[in-house]
């Protein structure tokens, strides 16, 4: 292992049910509380017990931009994990394990690694101890191995188990110290420069950020049907429902979820729902309903590997086409794809504002990687005031719900006002809401109404395009030989790739989209000025590049696609780019 590294990659591996996620959480929080940066990715499977599950944490003195590739240190929790993970560990790395569970001679697998087997059963004899506490011992040994401050760990355990009483706290601290002491006595701490800056950051995932972002920006109603990897938003909000006076409903299916949301939005409530691709497919008809009835709704699609059930616990950016084409007919929609956890928080608020400003569905594209990987993040502050658009609670008898206006947005009357009665219909209708689809359909007057009212709705797209959609960001050297083009959650990984490539003497910059549709003016100009562009997408068909071509006529000819279910890392992208470059 190279000396005085400023970052280190740790993997905790075992079977589902071994307590990996909570071990990773404890270790991640201990690092975060010392002012270190953490990026953690949970590689899990669609099984409640068994299989192979691992959490990988990239810990650094500076911001870590991905969860890293090969681990420097691995904690192995069960007997099947050595064969899977030992071949992947970096040269000269360290393996920590419980030798009471894994009695095997692991050194036969690889000679270059250091193996620390801690015999849990011999070391801890307290009758109150339970098997899963071996994880706490191994975290203690890891803390000592990395030369971190054990007191932070002891304090964290004390807080974590407050509700369970002093006895449990003491036992956990004893077990943790056992790990610390064992390394002191039998091992050697690594030579690292892991220096925290003392700033206490949150350690949370994108779903927490979406949930908190919705809540902080006035969400009052949320409905969902459980579906990985979107369920975390439901869990977060459900827990906050009483304290923050929201109605959070688990419904019978996704069709119900989105239609509940449309009903609540119609009543004048800020409402949203989230799902993954399969659930979104079920919601599709109602997205069109919201477009037609001009209802302000926010739908988050947390993408996972498709098609169909696909690889439900794995990563993909495969649903952009679905969102672009969701529902039959033509109606305005806005599609946003936040680039990281902080952006997820702010995008949730922005989406609620845009939905009410344009009275139309706003769709957010997240994915498993953004929604479920944990990052150290500065505490959020609301920067966007809540703006509710053209909403009113009183009306005269001449009120027209779908009044034709300059910007396509009509005054929205909250139902309940005397004199303002109107019907919102999925059928085509006139300015007052009277349907023209039945006995009036095809009559000359109806043709004119249809043209006007359809043009009115579609006008919102043009207004949003110029007033609200933001151009892609450009980072890195201005005059680059190569531009990497990405969207959504791949932001940090592409940044990391640029750092690696530029450190190797290349001149690469990064162009990144978060506002996907309607595409703002000026994208073509930006692209035209790039010398060479490679699109980087976590999908097979380069859906963003196709959208760009459709919207701007610019053809991004070279792409890097990853669709094996794993997220990109900077190292991975950089390696692929290097290969691409040799092909030029």
């Amino acid at each position: 292992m190279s000396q005085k590294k400023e970052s280190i990659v740790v993997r905790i591996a075992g079977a589902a049910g071994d307590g990996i996620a909570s071990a990773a959480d404890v270790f991640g929080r201990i690092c975060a509380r010392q002012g270190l940066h953490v990026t953690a990715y949970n590689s899990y499977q669609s099984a409640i017990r068994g299989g192979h599950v691992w959490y990988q944490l990239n810990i650094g003195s500076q911001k870590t931009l991905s969860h890293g590739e090969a681990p420097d240190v691995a904690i192995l929790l069960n007997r099947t994990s050595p064969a899977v993970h030992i071949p992947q560990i970096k040269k000269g790395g360290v393996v920590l394990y419980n030798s009471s569970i894994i009695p095997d001679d692991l050194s036969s697998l690889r000679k270059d690694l250091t193996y620390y087997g801690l015999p849990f059963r011999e070391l801890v004899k307290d009758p109150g101890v339970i098997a899963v506490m071996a994880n706490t011992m191994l975290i203690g040994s890891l803390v000592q191995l990395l030369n971190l401050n054990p007191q932070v760990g002891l304090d964290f355990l004390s807080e974590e188990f407050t509700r369970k009483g002093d006895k449990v706290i003491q036992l956990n601290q004893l077990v943790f110290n056992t790990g610390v002491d064992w390394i002191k006595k039998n091992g050697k701490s690594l030579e690292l420069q892991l220096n925290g800056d003392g700033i206490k950051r949150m350690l949370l995932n994108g779903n927490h950020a979406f949930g908190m972002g919705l809540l902080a920006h006035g969400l009052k109603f949320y409905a969902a049907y459980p579906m990985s990897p979107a369920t975390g938003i439901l869990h977060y909000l459900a827990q906050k429902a009483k304290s923050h006076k929201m109605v959070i409903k688990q419904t019978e299916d996704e069709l119900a979820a989105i239609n509940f949301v449309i009903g609540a939005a119609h009543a004048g409530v800020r409402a949203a729902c989230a799902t993954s691709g399969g659930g979104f497919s079920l919601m599709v008809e109602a997205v069109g309903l919201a477009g037609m009835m001009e209802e302000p709704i926010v739908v988050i699609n947390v993408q996972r590997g498709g098609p169909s059930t696909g690889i439900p616990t794995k990563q993909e950016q495969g649903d952009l086409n679905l969102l672009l084409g969701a529902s039959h007919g033509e109606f305005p929609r806005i599609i946003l794809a936040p680039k990281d956890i902080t952006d997820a928080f702010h995008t949730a608020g922005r989406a609620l504002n845009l939905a009410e400003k344009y009275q139309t569905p706003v769709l957010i594209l997240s994915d498993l990687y953004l929604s479920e990987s944990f990052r150290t993040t500065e505490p959020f502050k609301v920067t966007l005031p809540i703006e509710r658009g053209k909403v009113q609670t009183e009306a005269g008898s001449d009120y027209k719900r779908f009044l034709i206006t300059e910007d396509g947005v009509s005054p929205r009357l909250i139902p309940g006002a005397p004199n303002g009665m109107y019907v919102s219909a999925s059928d085509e209708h006139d300015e007052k809401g009277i349907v023209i689809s039945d006995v009036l359909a095809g009559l000359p007057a109806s043709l004119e109404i249809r043209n006007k009212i359809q043009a009115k709705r579609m006008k919102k797209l043009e207004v949003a395009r110029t007033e609200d959609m933001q151009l892609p960001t450009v980072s890195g050297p201005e005059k680059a030989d190569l531009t990497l083009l990405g969207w959504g959650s791949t932001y940090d990984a592409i940044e990391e790739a640029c750092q690696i490539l530029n450190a190797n003497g290349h001149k690469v910059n990064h162009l990144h989209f978060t506002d996907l549709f309607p595409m703002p003016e000026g994208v073509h100009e930006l692209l035209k000025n790039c010398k060479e562009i490679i699109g980087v997408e976590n999908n097979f068909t380069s859906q963003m590049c196709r959208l760009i071509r459709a919207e701007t006529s610019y053809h991004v000819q070279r792409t890097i696609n990853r669709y094996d279910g794993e997220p990109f890392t900077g190292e991975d992208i950089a390696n692929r780019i290097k290969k691409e470059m040799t092909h030029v």
Partner: protein
Amino acid sequence: MSEAKDFNHETHPDWCPGCGDFGLLQALKKTYPLLNLNPHDLMTVSGIGCSSNLPGFINTYGMHTLHGRSLPIAQGFKLGNHKMTVVAVGGDGDGYGIGVGHLVHAMRRNVDITYLVMNNEIYGLTTGQTSPTSDLGMKTKSTPFGNPEVPINPLTLALASGCGFVARVYTGHIPQLVEILKKAIEHQGFALVDTFSPCVTFNKVNTHEYFKTNTVDIQKEGHDPSDIYAAYKQATRTDKIATGIFYQNVRSCYEATEEETLAEPLYRHKLGLTEEEQAKLCAEFI
């Protein structure tokens, strides 16, 4: 104080002359004043089908939505503004076919809305195919050799799903219909009223004459609506077609479980957090 004419809409119903749906529309206009409801107190939600055009023919707030999805929308609206009276309407295809999943869950969830199904035992707007309530053996355009499937019994389905108010009535019997609608809307919780609303164009079996002849008012027979077993018996009897209130209980409605949150209607809540509240949310992750 409202009057029936306050609920008249400028749009004349486009139903076929003689359609059973006229009876329900008329009865609703008579019922609302009896409950001191004004047009602006009411939200009428429908799905798709002939009967789902009703919100466009009555002067209340309305949502005319998707086939089978009226109930989720009606429940979402009610939770957003529970001070308004929400009446969902639709046909048997809408409620017992494409939307039956939502119906079962709405009944056990027990949000305080009233659901009126205009059941004509046929698909009318699509010009005469079999419906979930078409009789076994009924010949329709999609079952020219007779319907091979047994019909759903909406009443026993409702009883089994925890519905707290279960009634059935023929739309030609206006006084009975008004009486039942009044009680259904007053009921605190989900109320299902299955109405026989004959399709004069496509159903030549279950006609006005058929219901006039074959129905019986179980209230007149002394049926006790608090007795769920008696309700099952009435719902499955074969000598006559039972109408009336089959079952009613006093289970508290869904909104009661959100009492604190809904002390004020959701749409009127103050939005956003103070800086302290926001900081507290963040601190949970540190």
